[in-house]
């Protein structure tokens, strides 16, 4: 294998190794472990940055190892402009987030666990974006959901955190299953087993009859992960997580996995009427709903969360719009958003950490206390608002250029993005400017600048948003253009720079800014208006989720009451009726009933044994009390054991004797323990039913055995064992040799079952013994 290949494998594994080491490191180094752990994403960043040149030149780097040959599953990765940009964002922002967490959770008892989860997520996300084979894509996709669940529920002492974690897991996990189904459909339709193979099929998928099914299933995965309306509700709830998580998972990376998927599939699934309708409509709706709901909030993190929902909507809308420029805009906006939103989240966290509140109405005048944070916040807010000379400005110019290409369709979406962008402008400055200006307000904690770990992240990200725009030729060449080429499937050159170019986009940008300033100034009345409106509507998907969960629980309780009613007699009746029917119905249906058996003359002692068995049976039926019945059942069993002996199966007979003895002993013990009345007083109706079920089962089994013994007997196995028992297995007792040697694995399984059954019975007996008040399982 090539060296680079080996290193990429290490890069994919390293975060998980870091996750394993994190708790120990944190125990040894305290919060300074962040400096060491940050080396993991730094390594990833440097490693993936090494591919920049090759990929900017238009290559795609693949690699991997075959994993399960028989299932055609590989551990393989595929790096092109799209996955590389994502990989760099994940590892780059990941570095800052690890450092930030070191400051944010300094002194927290579970900081080691937090690092561990964050690195685990990083590994999953990294794997997701570079995965080539469908299986890997799916596994990493679900791993990100699980990591997100762990991180949202990090503060698991609070019920809100537990609920949010579970909600995110259910929504994104269900989406993951939908994605799995979608990938299977795609594989069926095209035969492709990996993304790189899929990208080669061209129009194959679009023209496949299963296109619609594949599209809907994939969208189910992408829309839940990327919080598109009406699945957006889990994302704001996920703000229960510590702020580094919100900054990393729920704005910069994980929620973009859905967008990544759509962009990845755009070359093979896009450019159809369906794609270009569904995506913009859902994305546009999400954009408007997200921004309107953001206006309603006063919590800094929630405001940012709803604008994240809106931004994701914007990205989906642009990806599905169907013009090359719109895709370029999506690419630029995605990069810009990761930087400014990550920075703003970290700012919100730092403000919360230093002042003790993140309620917008309780903050003000922080510019003097927290100057560095303020600078970072302002830069990020300017990028979010789309002001020159920031990367957000380039993105917005491109958005308007991409959407406003003519037709009423684009006029409508221009209006949508105009409103959305203006509101995002207002929210961006509400978060990035308002807490820092105006009169100094008394906060729960005395505000002062946070430690370097807290401001490093936002400063670097905000500065990156500025530098990437100033040196746009550089960033386009290495990041934006290769990524846009990967998304469109053709070589694309992005040329936009901060130098203003007079035209419609610039005009629309100006309008956006004017509208945005207006919205910023009227934010408070707008908030009250939104609050009244939402109160009037009353119902939302979040509440719907609760209703859905409650309904599911109620349904399962209802079904359980019917199926698992706790009455042993009903279980047994059902089991035996099912047994009898499953034997009798096929036999009658397929005409496999046995012919009348030929009776051989029996010897005197054989008759005697049979008569003893029958007497035992009669005694069971007519026994006056239960104990007699149990012992009589043993008589019948012994008689059968004797028969085995007479017919030349000593081992079987031996075992039968012991099993019968122990059954009698154990049954008798159970009977005394259950404190049943000594005799059997079933009502006549019950008796009739039980007798018929018993007779039915007996008949069915008897007929089956007769039928089986009438079929031609294949001696191949018997001959083999008889021949080889001595030769191969060194034993003369064929039965034993089969048990311990030829079929040793079966026996191993069986004794494991014996032991587990023993454990279960022990537990059952204990429960009964421990709770004398508990209702006994059997009744009379």
């Amino acid at each position: 294998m090539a060296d680079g290949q080996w290193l990429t494998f290490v890069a994919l594994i390293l975060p998980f190794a870091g996750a394993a080491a994190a708790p120990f490191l944190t125990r040894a180094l305290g919060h300074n472990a962040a400096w060491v752990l940050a080396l993991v994403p730094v390594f990833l960043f440097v490693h993936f940055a090494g591919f920049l040149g090759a990929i900017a030149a238009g290559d795609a780097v693949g690699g991997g190892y075959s994993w399960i040959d028989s299932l055609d599953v590989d551990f393989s990765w595929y790096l092109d402009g799209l996955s590389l940009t994502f990989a760099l964002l994940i590892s780059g922002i990941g570095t800052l987030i690890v450092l930030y967490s070191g400051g944010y959770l300094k002194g927290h008892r579970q900081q080691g666990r937090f690092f561990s989860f964050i690195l685990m997520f990083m590994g999953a996300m990294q794997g997701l974006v570079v995965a080539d084979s469908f299986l890997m894509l799916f596994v990493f996709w679900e791993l990100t959901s699980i990591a997100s669940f762990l991180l949202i529920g990090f503060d698991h002492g609070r019920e809100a955190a537990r609920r949010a974690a579970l909600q995110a897991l259910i929504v994104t996990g269900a989406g993951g299953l939908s994605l799995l189904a979608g990938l299977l459909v795609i594989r069926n339709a095209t035969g492709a087993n990996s993304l790189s193979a899929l990208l080669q099929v061209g129009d194959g998928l679009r023209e496949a009859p299963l296109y619609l099914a594949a599209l809907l299933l994939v969208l189910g995965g992408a829309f839940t992960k990327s919080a598109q309306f009406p699945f957006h509700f889990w994302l704001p709830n996920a703000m229960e997580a510590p702020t580094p998580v919100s900054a990393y998972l729920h704005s910069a990376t994980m929620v973009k996995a859905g967008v990544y998927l759509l962009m990845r599939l755009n070359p093979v699934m896009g450019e159809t009427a369906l794609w270009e309708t569904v995506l913009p409509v859902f994305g546009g709706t999400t954009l408007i709903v997200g921004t309107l709901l953001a206006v309603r909030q006063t919590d800094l993190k929630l405001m940012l969360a709803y604008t994240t929902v809106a931004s994701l909507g914007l990205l989906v809308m642009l990806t599905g719009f169907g013009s090359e420029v719109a895709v370029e805009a999506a690419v630029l906006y995605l990069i810009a958003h990761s930087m400014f939103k990550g920075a703003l989240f970290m700012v919100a966290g730092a403000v919360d950490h230093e002042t003790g509140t993140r309620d917008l109405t309780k903050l003000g005048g922080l510019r003097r206390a927290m100057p560095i944070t303020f600078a970072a916040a302002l830069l990020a807010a300017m990028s979010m608002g789309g002001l020159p000379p920031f990367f957000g400005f380039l993105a917005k110019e491109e958005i308007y250029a991409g959407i406003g290409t003519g037709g009423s369709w684009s006029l409508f979406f221009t209006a949508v993005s105009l409103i959305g962008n203006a509101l995002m402008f207002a929210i961006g400055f509400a978060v990035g400017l308002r807490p820092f200006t105006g009169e100094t307000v008394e906060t729960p904690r005395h505000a002062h600048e946070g430690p370097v770990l807290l401001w490093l992240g936002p400063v670097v990200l905000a500065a990156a948003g500025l530098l990437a725009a100033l040196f746009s030729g550089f960033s386009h060449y290495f990041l934006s253009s290769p990524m846009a080429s990967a998304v469109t499937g053709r070589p694309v050159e992005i040329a936009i720079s901060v130098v203003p170019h007079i035209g419609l986009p610039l005009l629309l940008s100006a309008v956006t800014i004017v509208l945005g300033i207006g919205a910023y100034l009227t934010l408070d009345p707008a908030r009250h208006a939104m609050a009244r409106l939402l109160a009037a509507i009353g119902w939302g998907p979040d509440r719907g989720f609760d209703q859905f969960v409650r309904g599911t629980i109620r349904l399962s309780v209802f079904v359980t009451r019917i199926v698992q009613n706790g009455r042993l007699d009903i279980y047994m009746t059902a089991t035996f009726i099912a047994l009898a029917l499953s034997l009798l119905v096929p036999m009658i249906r397929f005409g496999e009933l046995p012919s009348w058996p030929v009776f051989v003359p029996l010897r005197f002692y054989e008759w005697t044994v049979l008569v003893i068995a029958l007497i035992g049976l009669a005694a069971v039926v007519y026994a006056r009390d239960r104990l007699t019945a149990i012992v009589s059942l043993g008589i019948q069993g012994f008689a059968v054991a004797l028969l085995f002996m007479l017919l030349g199966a000593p081992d079987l007979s031996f075992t039968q004797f012991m099993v019968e003895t122990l059954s009698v002993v154990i049954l008798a013990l159970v009977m005394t323990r259950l404190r049943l009345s000594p005799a059997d007083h079933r009502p006549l109706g019950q008796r009739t039913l039980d007798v018929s079920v018993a007779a039915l089962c007996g008949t069915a089994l008897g007929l089956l055995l007769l039928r089986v013994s009438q079929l031609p007997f294949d001696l191949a196995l018997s001959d083999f064992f008889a021949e080889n028992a001595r030769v191969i297995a060194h034993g003369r007792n064929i039965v034993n040799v089969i048990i311990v040697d030829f079929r040793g694995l079966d026996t191993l399984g069986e004794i494991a079952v014996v032991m587990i059954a023993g454990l279960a019975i022990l537990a059952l007996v204990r429960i009964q013994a421990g709770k004398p008040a508990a209702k006994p399982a059997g009744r009379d």
Partner: protein
Amino acid sequence: MRTLIFRTTAPYLTALMVLFSIFVLLRGHNEPGGGFIGGLIAASAFAIYGIACGVSPVRRALYFHPMAISAFGLLVSATSGVVSLFFDVPFLTGLWTTIDLLGLPVDFSTVILFDIGVYFVVLGSITSIALALEEREHA
């Protein structure tokens, strides 16, 4: 059940049955018998002891919890299969060797280890069920 005769003879009966169960276990490879049936015999021996003299003497006599004996048996059986991996043959392949025991050649194999494991699993599981049911003082 606690008649004088039963109580007096039960320990001897148990000892004899346990001895017999070991005999049955060891001869199983060539004559009728084996781990499963041996385990059943031993389990019924302890069950009888428990019925005659109460559960706590049995637990004392066994020293280990019967379930632990069962788990030990499963471990023995599983490990006896692992041995074959060191000889580059598939899992659970029987390996044979002859040991010179006091001048007497005795065939020894991983198969007999496996069978001993089966013996302990059956003995432990059944005994623990029987003893748990016999334990009436907690009921």
